[in-house]
């Protein structure tokens, strides 16, 4: 008989318990700290999760440039950019709460599962306190959900679906970028002025969350201005050649084609539409028109001369003449030799807004930061007076209606501003039907 206290069953039980403990993801074992990835005294790390490969890699690169610039400005390097024009003066160019800002980058590849894996790695392995960036609503919603579970603040990049701050909103997620409803509300009156109220629109729409809400918003806003909707057709993301979706438009009786496409899909669909002579066509006694509700500079560059005279909307554009825009364009242009895109702008502003909220809250605790951002009103960031609404974490500000320039003078001179739509015109109630169905929920600090 053995005197040993070790039994086979005991060893298995202990081993199983220890194994399970070790196997638990670190994001669920943060109870020892006050909150997830509480930074030390010397530095704080933030994560930039942007597409570095795939169709939006150039846009991701531009976001990354702006994010690096924001970190420089937070650490007191360079000319300070928008810190000089920002209405809040909580940041002093000495990092965040005296800690030097460091960053790591991840690649979303514009795929939700890849983006989540990348964000998870930055949270668990790199210990980031906040995640910022991205160029897709599908990705933003996926990463926002992960950050909520992990107790991390998510400062969204380019995401335009109503769902991001609608049915999929989360207490730990914040969006500075405008949304599909705002695009519709800003564009519809301009389109009515330009093309009249007796129009028949045909919609081609990307078959995912952004496309669906963009189409819903455009249909509602244009119909409110007298337009009729001839047809709405969903197209697969990355369809390549859109000719087989464009040809049915020719004899549909529609006199306007609304392309609810973004990025490479928009470039390909508008190219096909122009090739098939839609812009030279007359229907119902009127010139046929094309509308692209969401513009970006890189997308316009890819579409080339096909976007001349085509209306769309933007969150921000480097040609604005306010002090904040001038400061940012100067910093960015001198460092990188080109003006920033509107996705670069939103990522830059989001990084500064996060840092400012930490400074005002006096804590990195995500719940304290969230509280500082909720209801925060600010100015000097290129969009005029802006509100981070507490109810849904959506920023409310002016929206730009843009048009493809007829005679561009250089590669950056592609779009021109038609109108700055005032914030009041694009505001909506938090319980608006297009945003209904989700709950913000409670903030999660990971404690």
């Amino acid at each position, binding site marked *: 008989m053995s005197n040993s206290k070790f039994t086979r069953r005991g060893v298995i039980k202990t081993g199983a318990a220890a194994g399970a403990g070790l196997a638990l993801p670190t994001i669920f074992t943060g109870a020892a700290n006050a909150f997830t990835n509480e930074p030390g005294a010397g530095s704080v790390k933030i994560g930039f999760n942007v597409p570095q*490969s*795939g*169709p*939006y*890699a*150039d846009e991701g*690169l531009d976001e990354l440039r702006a994010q690096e610039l924001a970190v420089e400005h937070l650490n007191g390097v360079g000319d300070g950019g928008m810190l000089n024009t920002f209405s809040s003066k909580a940041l002093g160019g000495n990092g965040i709460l005296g800690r030097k800002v460091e960053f790591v980058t991840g690649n979303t590849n514009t795929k939700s599962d890849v983006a989540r894996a990348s964000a998870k790695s930055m949270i668990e392995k790199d210990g980031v306190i906040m995640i910022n960036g991205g160029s897709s609503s599908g990705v933003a919603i996926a990463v926002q959900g992960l950050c909520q579970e992990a107790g991390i603040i998510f400062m969204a990049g380019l995401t335009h679906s109503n769902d991001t701050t609608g049915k999929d909103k989360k207490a730990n997620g914040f969006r500075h970028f405008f949304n599909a409803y705002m695009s519709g509300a800003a564009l519809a009156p301009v389109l009515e002025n330009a093309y009249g109220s007796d129009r028949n629109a045909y919609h081609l729409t990307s078959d995912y969350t952004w496309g669906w809400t963009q189409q819903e918003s455009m249909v509602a806003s244009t119909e409110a201005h007298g337009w009729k909707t001839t*047809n709405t*057709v969903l197209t*697969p993301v*990355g369809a*390549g*050649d859109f*000719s*087989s*979706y464009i*040809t*049915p438009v*020719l*004899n549909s009786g529609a006199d306007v084609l609304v392309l609810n496409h973004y990025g*490479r899909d928009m*470039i*390909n669909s508008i*190219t*096909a539409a122009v*090739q*098939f*002579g839609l812009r*030279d*066509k007359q229907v119902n006694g009127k010139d046929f028109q094309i509308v692209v509700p969401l513009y970006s500079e*890189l997308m316009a*560059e*890819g*579409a*080339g*001369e*096909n976007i001349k005279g085509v209306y769309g909307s933007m969150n921000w554009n*480097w040609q604005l003449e306010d002090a904040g825009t001038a400061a940012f*364009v*100067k910093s960015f*242009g*001198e460092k990188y030799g080109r*003006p920033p895109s509107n996705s670069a702008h939103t990522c830059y502003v989001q990084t500064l807004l996060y840092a400012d909220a930490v400074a005002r809250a006096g804590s990195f605790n995500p719940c304290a930061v969230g509280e500082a951002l909720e209801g925060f009103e600010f100015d000097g960031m290129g969009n005029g007076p802006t509100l981070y609404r507490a109810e849904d974490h959506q920023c409310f500000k002016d929206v730009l209606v843009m048009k493809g320039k007829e005679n561009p*003078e*250089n590669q*950056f001179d592609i779009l021109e501003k038609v109108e700055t739509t005032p914030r009041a015109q694009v505001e909506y109630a938090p319980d608006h039907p297009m945003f209904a169905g989700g709950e913000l929920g409670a903030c999660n600090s990971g404690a």
Partner: protein
Amino acid sequence: MDAILLQTLNGLDKGAAYALIALGLTLIFGTLGVVNFAHGALFMIGSFCAVTLQRLLSISYTTIDPEKTDFLGNPAKIETPYIEGWFGPEIGAAIIDWSVPLAIIFAIPIMVTLGFIMERGLIKHFYNRPHADQILVTFGLAIVLQEIIKYYFGANPIPTPAPTAFKGSLDIGVMIGFDPNAIIYPIWRLIYFVFSLIVIGGIFAFLRFTTFGMVVRAGMADRETVGLLGINIDKRFTIMFGIAAAVAGLAGVMYTPINSPNYEFGMEFLVLSFVVVVVGGMGSLPGAVMAGFLLGILGSFASMNEVKQIFPGIDQIIIYLVAIIILLVRPRGLMGRKGVMEE
């Protein structure tokens, strides 16, 4: 009726691209027995030959215009292409305008050389390896080529328009008795279709009516016997690899005005082209061409609203669905030969 005609035309130009890529794939498979997953990348490289020539022709000298400013408020730099200085503004601009057709001449030597380098430098080492190894190595090569293009040209599509003379569209409906505006088709897509027929016809004529082609066909049928006759069949097959690379490259060059090229351009076609090869019958050149056009046209019809209302989502699966049905009915594909890929 007009909608059906329009979708048929659509299918023909899409099918033309599938047929050209599938033809090259079949040439390589039929001669060298290699499953070349880098073939889509060759299509992409061809399209970037057009981009490169456009940029070469547009190389400019810079002058300062003190009356204009750039985005930072500095005096604006005005770029003027050298070619406009050498030949005058009108002729210089016309040469740049015609960069896509001119790129055909530019692309042929580049693509043939690239084909030789690929075959001699890498692929020949995998002739006696399993098909899975060949797929892995050529797929890896495709990714390397993509990343090289992305590094130098970026990820954003680059507009590469057709010459101004071919930019518009034709009212084909009026020509055949329909109402005006009923069947409008872009001129460049018609040119692409005709171009593909010429290339396909040229390849078939080359294989059918030249001694070189006869030897290659004999080698495709029975490589060992041709070798025993003292003919260096390997050398001819290497040349065929170069020709197949050039066909893919030319398909890419001419496709640039239809869709702006980007580094993932080839992958969009590669998978579908493999389906085309399998449906046509492994190793069958006429089968590849026939299946290319057939699947192109079916894909177009499946995108019609009337069809999608009955079968939602059919546009995304039609090609694979047809491939399954054909392979169930004819396991060797439409024109497949016994013994190919069956050992």
